């Protein structure tokens, strides 16, 4: 009886396995047209417009279908890496400058240079730093940005008004404002205290505004050990040690919900928060305004522009079609990019033609002010190897949470960066 039951069980198992295999074979053989997959974490209205861009391209190139697939934002880069490593990755995906270099060093990106004409390049803004430079390596273009935006110091009018404070323009004014605004219920300011590329992104402008920088890329040497770097490190250290900001917030430190709900009086927020904080937005009642990020005495205003770019996977079977789509979507199409930067997700565009179109859309409120004041003057987030991002993070953390002094930490980090560069052969 036992052997009979065993035999029946094995027969059932084999049949199920055979059916599954046959089904899989049929699914593979059904794919005959060119279909490329575009992954991004940009959902909601942003994802809606990106889908429209894909659909419009299919009307221009009927033989090519670009399918937009939304993937979770959490651990986005890990998901892409794992998928590419296992051969199940997308043909097109989005990246920001902060995580771009690793993919270039691994030859995981399509070279877009042959498809990108000088006429297209002339439409890209060349303000303080050309946005395309963050996505170039050894003279070749591997990604093209389609959005961008800076960060600003947002503040609650009611809280500053009650304390009798003007929005700070300089660092000493910022510290004074934080001191007056911090009480047992709220923090004066929200800073990103967690180590990582997000923290570095928020911290870089404080270094740049004093004239500091990370690398001399021509000579591949660190210039991080400067007084400007030290001052920026000390500023952040002072803010956390005096209790003006928290090491942990209930939400992400750059999430506008903190200032919207009155948990902080001032907050560094970027273009992503403007819709919610503006008139008609979720936190309209919070009555929020903004100024440039405060600078040191004698410093110069510089912003940090972040944003996503489209990248083609070198493992794609349709590299040519992928490159053509990316170039069309980011460097040729105008109307849908205007729609993306207004309706999809409030952001600036690295292209002059798109920004000109947006002036008729941003006519009032925070959106207009942000477009006029914040977007024009900035430099794109630098593309750095993760080792250098980590070294900079250590310096910031030591000044914030240990007894690190700015100049010591800046010089120590600079030496570590040089030590790394001595053996690093990847792209910069």
């Amino acid at each position, binding site marked *: 009886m036992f052997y009979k039951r065993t035999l029946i069980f094995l027969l059932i198992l084999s049949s199920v396995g055979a059916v599954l295999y046959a089904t899989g074979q049929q699914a593979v053989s059904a794919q005959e047209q060119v279909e490329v997959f575009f992954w991004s974490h940009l959902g909601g209205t942003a994802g809606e417009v990106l889908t429209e861009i894909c659909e419009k391209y299919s009307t221009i190139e009927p033989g090519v279908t670009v399918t937009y697939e939304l993937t979770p934002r959490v651990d986005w*880069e890990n998901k892409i890496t*794992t998928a590419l490593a296992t051969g199940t990755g997308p043909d097109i995906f989005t990246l920001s400058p902060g995580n771009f270099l690793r993919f270039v060093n691994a030859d995981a990106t399509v070279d877009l240079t042959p498809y990108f004409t000088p006429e297209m390049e002339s439409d890209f803004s060349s303000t303080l730093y050309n946005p395309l430079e963050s996505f170039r390596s050894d003279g070749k273009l591997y990604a093209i940005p389609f959005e961008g935006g800076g960060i600003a110091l947002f503040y609650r009018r009611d809280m500053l008004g009650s304390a009798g404070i003007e929005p700070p323009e300089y660092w000493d004014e910022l510290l004074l404002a934080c001191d007056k605004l911090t009480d047992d219920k709220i923090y004066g300011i929200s800073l990103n205290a967690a180590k990582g590329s997000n923290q570095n992104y928020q911290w870089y402008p404080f270094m740049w505004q004093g004239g500091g920088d990370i690398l001399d890329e021509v000579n591949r040497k660190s210039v991080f050990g400067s007084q400007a770097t030290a001052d920026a490190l000390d500023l952040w250290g002072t803010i956390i040690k005096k209790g003006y900001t928290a090491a*942990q917030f209930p939400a992400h430190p750059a999430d506008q919900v903190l200032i919207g709900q009155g948990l902080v009086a001032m907050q560094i927020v970027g273009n992503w928060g403007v819709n919610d904080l503006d008139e008609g937005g979720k936190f309209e009642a919070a009555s929020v305004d903004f100024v440039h990020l405060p600078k040191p005495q004698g410093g110069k205003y510089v912003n940090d522009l972040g944003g996503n770019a489209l990248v083609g996977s070198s493992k794609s079977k349709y590299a040519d079609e992928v490159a053509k789509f990316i170039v069309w979507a980011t460097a040729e199409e105008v109307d849908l990019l205007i729609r993306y930067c207004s309706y999809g997700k409030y952001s600036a565009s690295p292209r002059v033609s798109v920004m000109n179109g947006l002036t008729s859309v941003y006519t009032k409120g925070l959106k207009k002010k942000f477009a006029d004041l914040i977007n024009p003057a900035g430099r794109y987030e630098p593309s750095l190897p993760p080792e250098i991002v980590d070294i900079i993070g250590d310096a910031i953390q030591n000044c914030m949470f240990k007894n690190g002094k700015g100049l010591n930490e800046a010089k120590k980090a600079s030496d570590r960066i040089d030590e790394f560069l001595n053996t690093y052969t990847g792209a910069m």
Partner: protein
Amino acid sequence: MMKTNRKLYENLSAYFLLFPDLLLLTMFVFIPVLGSFYLSLHKWNGLSQMIFVGLGNYRRIFRDLAWWHSVGISFLYTLMYVPAVFAVALALALLLSNLKARIQGLFGTLYFVPFAVSGIVASFIWKFLYSPKNGYINQALAFLGVAPQLWLGSTKQALISVVIVSLWMHVGFNMIIFLAGILDIPANYYEAAEIDGARSVTKFFRITFPLLRNTNIFILITSSILSFQVFDQVKAMTNGGPGDATNVSVFHIYRQAFEMFHFGYSASMAFVLFMIILVISLLQLNVLKSSRD
């Protein structure tokens, strides 16, 4: 003949019933472990080709001060967590053992509930409780006249704050195991001790604790292993900070893999951590079992 057939039938049945679990263990544990060891012999960023480096990753570990610092943090965590969970679980089990069955069941369930909560969910809830300005813990302290604490925002308090959350999550499970051990002790031992005039403390140290030896060994070893594997609470509440105050070994390995993209190196760290845990477990087993002998 019939006896032999029956034995064969029983053996085959046993193997047949064990086979699915063994298959799953092979697919999801043994093969990945072997794969991880293979990976640890290579340099790989997840995208490029793997480069064979032999024991190069292991040699690098010995020079990596950040790694050994994270091991130190893990040891500190273990030294705080294991005695606490042991003592609290045992104390609760002793209290519950004196209750009537229904009430014992009710309280047992209540204490066990946190164990059923996902680590990430529990961590986010506690993150709110720990909030320095608006969290309930500081509000309760303020009511008692105690100054507000930074908790997760303090390099001195962050690790113990994480230990408290782990304790809250796991004490119920350990309590149930202790309770089962206590209820298994024959009642006539206590009766005989009472006749001799033994007090509660004496009964505990002379009867209860010694007869719980096997349970004690089990709780100590499993708690130690678990404490070295803590990750969810750190990731959700502190992200290894502030500074690197809660940068435990597993979190350090995670960072090396998924933030630095040193997959081969992180795999080698995982094996070194495995060896550390194995040595500690064997030492514990030897010491505790030899004390019994």
